[in-house]
């Protein structure tokens, strides 16, 4: 049995002392930034990318992945205790979780969310292990036209499912693609948009741009408000849920896991959409819908399981197709490229240790999170009291030194500054940064696949529609793009996001 062998190989990689240590470091850092205000997983992973360059690629990926799903746990801690979701995906948890905290049941809410997340993480890991090899088998037969259609579909999906205006998201994706053009054209060796700057010949550095758009811009945005305020947290009495709590939570946990695993695979959906969908489903199925919003345990168990499952399965398109489904996955792709690994369906064949090791480490990481976080929750609460005015100078120093040490070029610090200001402008204009980053990472690939497809077909653009797989992907992409402008879907999107922001 191939999958079993793979998981065994993965386990042997994931339980090595170095893997365990970096996995622990990753999930701890993830929880930390999930708890701390004003810094998200995308910015953190961008800042830590340069450091991981010194590591073996397997260890680097294990640590970066740990940061991502660790942040999902950390985000729910602040959502429950102080009604401030650390991550957007925990926004729904805050509704009933905070009410439970006000009723003195904060510990129970935390336990149920940790247990739900662990169950979801375990099942989702199995889903990845089963689905990924099959999917990469299919993708191995892809040629240039299929890959072009696939990337197009990925971009369209991110735009449709991302928060904010879909049209502006599309524009941001195109701007990202344009930025990806800078450098030497691989087909003719002519330089484009380099303005005589030698360092730009190999393209604008991905690390500097991401740290700018996600790290620096976030700092400037947070400084709009009052940075001195500290927050008060509810006390925790008992962590142990009652038998009745378990009975009520088990259904939502399993349903949330299913929903999250499914939605997580969709580009752009991931953790955020799945937690909201799960809340809506549980409210509809419940015999006591009036309890929702007043501390219903189902409203914590379902969304928390869903967002963790979604966070896990969003690795599937990244690992098997080389298509990122959100900003964090775009960073992981970038990390692989910087490490000299070509992302795509071949990763499972050429890098089995990396592929299976990463999957196995996710399960171990989820276990570490449960073991660590429940006893340590008091420590995390204390961290909540750190005022932002002390925190952000450190974040800024990390942004600068991280950008510089990646390649040792001063010009990247100037790119960082410009990217930071641009990222702030984007957020003021309500233009989502995630499609931009996706376009930027995918840009060179999109162009290469397109031009290669055109070379093969001798300039016949119908090639995308005459090959069956490519035609199917194209139909999906165009169909989605068309429905994007249909009023019903627009209304649905607005309702989903409006509800989630309540």
């Amino acid at each position, binding site marked *: 049995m191939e999958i079993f062998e793979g998981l065994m190989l993965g386990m042997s990689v994931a339980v090595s002392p170095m893997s365990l240590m970096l996995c622990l470091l990753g999930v701890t850092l993830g929880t930390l930034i999930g708890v701390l205000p004003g810094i998200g997983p995308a910015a953190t992973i961008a800042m830590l990318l340069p450091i991981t360059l*010194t590591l073996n690629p397997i260890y680097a990926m294990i640590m970066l992945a740990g940061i991502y799903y660790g942040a999902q746990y950390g985000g729910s801690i602040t959502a429950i205790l102080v009604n401030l979701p650390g991550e957007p995906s925990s926004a729904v948890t805050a509704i009933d979780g905070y009410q439970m905290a006000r009723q003195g049941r904060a510990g129970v809410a935390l336990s149920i969310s940790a247990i739900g997340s662990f169950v979801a993480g375990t099942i989702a890991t199995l889903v990845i292990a089963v689905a990924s090899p099959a999917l990469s088998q299919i993708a191995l037969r892809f040629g240039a036209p299929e890959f072009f259609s696939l990337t197009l579909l990925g971009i369209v999906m991110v735009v449709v499912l991302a928060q904010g*205006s879909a*049209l*502006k998201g599309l*524009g941001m994706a*195109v*701007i990202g*693609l*344009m930025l990806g*053009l800078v450098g030497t*054209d691989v*087909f*003719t060796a*002519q330089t*484009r*948009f380099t303005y005589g700057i030698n360092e730009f010949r190999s393209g604008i550095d991905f690390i500097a741009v991401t740290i700018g758009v996600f790290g*620096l811009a976030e*700092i*400037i945005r947070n*400084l*709009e408000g*009052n*940075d*001195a305020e500290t927050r008060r947290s509810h006390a925790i009495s008992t962590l142990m849920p009652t038998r009745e709590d378990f009975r009520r939570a088990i259904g939502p946990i399993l349903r949330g896991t299913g929903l999250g695993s499914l939605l997580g695979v969709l580009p752009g959906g991931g953790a955020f959409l799945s937690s909201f969908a799960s809340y809506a489903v549980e409210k509809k199925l419940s015999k006591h819908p009036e309890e929702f919003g007043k501390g219903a345990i189902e409203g914590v168990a379902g969304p928390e399981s869903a967002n963790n499952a979604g966070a896990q399965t969003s690795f599937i398109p990244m690992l098997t197709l080389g298509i990122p489904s959100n900003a964090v996955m775009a960073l992981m792709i970038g990390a692989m490229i910087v490490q000299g690994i070509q992302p795509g369906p071949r990763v499972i064949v050429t890098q089995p240790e990396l592929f299976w090791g990463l999957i196995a480490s996710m399960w171990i990481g989820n276990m570490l999170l449960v073991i660590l976080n429940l006893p340590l929750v008091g420590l995390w609460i204390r961290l909540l009291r750190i*005022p932002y*005015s*002390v925190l*952000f*100078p*450190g974040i*800024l*120093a*990390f*942004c*600068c*030194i991280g*950008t*510089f*040490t990646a390649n*040792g070029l*001063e010009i*990247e*610090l*100037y790119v*960082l*500054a410009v990217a*930071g*200001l641009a990222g*702030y402008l984007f957020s*003021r*204009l*309500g*233009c989502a940064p995630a499609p931009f980053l996706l376009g930027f990472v995918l840009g060179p690939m999109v162009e290469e696949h*397109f*031009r290669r497809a*055109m*070379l093969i077909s001798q*300039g*016949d*653009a119908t090639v995308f529609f005459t090959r069956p797989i490519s035609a199917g992907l194209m139909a999906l992409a165009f169909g989605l793009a068309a429905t994007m402008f249909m009023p019903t879907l627009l209304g649905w999107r607005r309702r989903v996001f409006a509800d989630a922001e309540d």
Partner: protein
Amino acid sequence: MIDWKSRDAVSGLMFLAIAIYVSVSTLVGLDIGSLDQMGPGFFPLALGVILGVIGVVVLASVKPDEDEMPPVNWRAVCLIGAAPVAFGLTVRSLGLVPALIVSVALATLSSSSIRPLNAVLVIVGVTVFCVVLFKFGIRVPYDLINRRFLP
């Protein structure tokens, strides 16, 4: 009538400006080619046209802003934007430690609430932490202080 100060309108104008800039500079400087013999300018021009269309559609469907945003903190914009530049200008000529001190100091200046003593503590703390992590932990090959500039 379009509210030119709304977020949508400014976004649309930004898209249009970028689209025109990229298209024109591609037409001027790069070989476009044809579908079967694509030059380096083909893809940039295509993107420019697409972004232009998007910009026009965004402008055509401008909606007034639904919510008020907090005012821009211009002090933070300038100082946070200047910090990496200051770091870049000093890291080689003066060394890692001075570069860190300058950029962190610029950052602390952008906070309206931090007290001077705390600011100094933050600057020292962050600098020490970064030096320990990057110089002694990861062993980056950059001088802490450039000796040529010492008296």
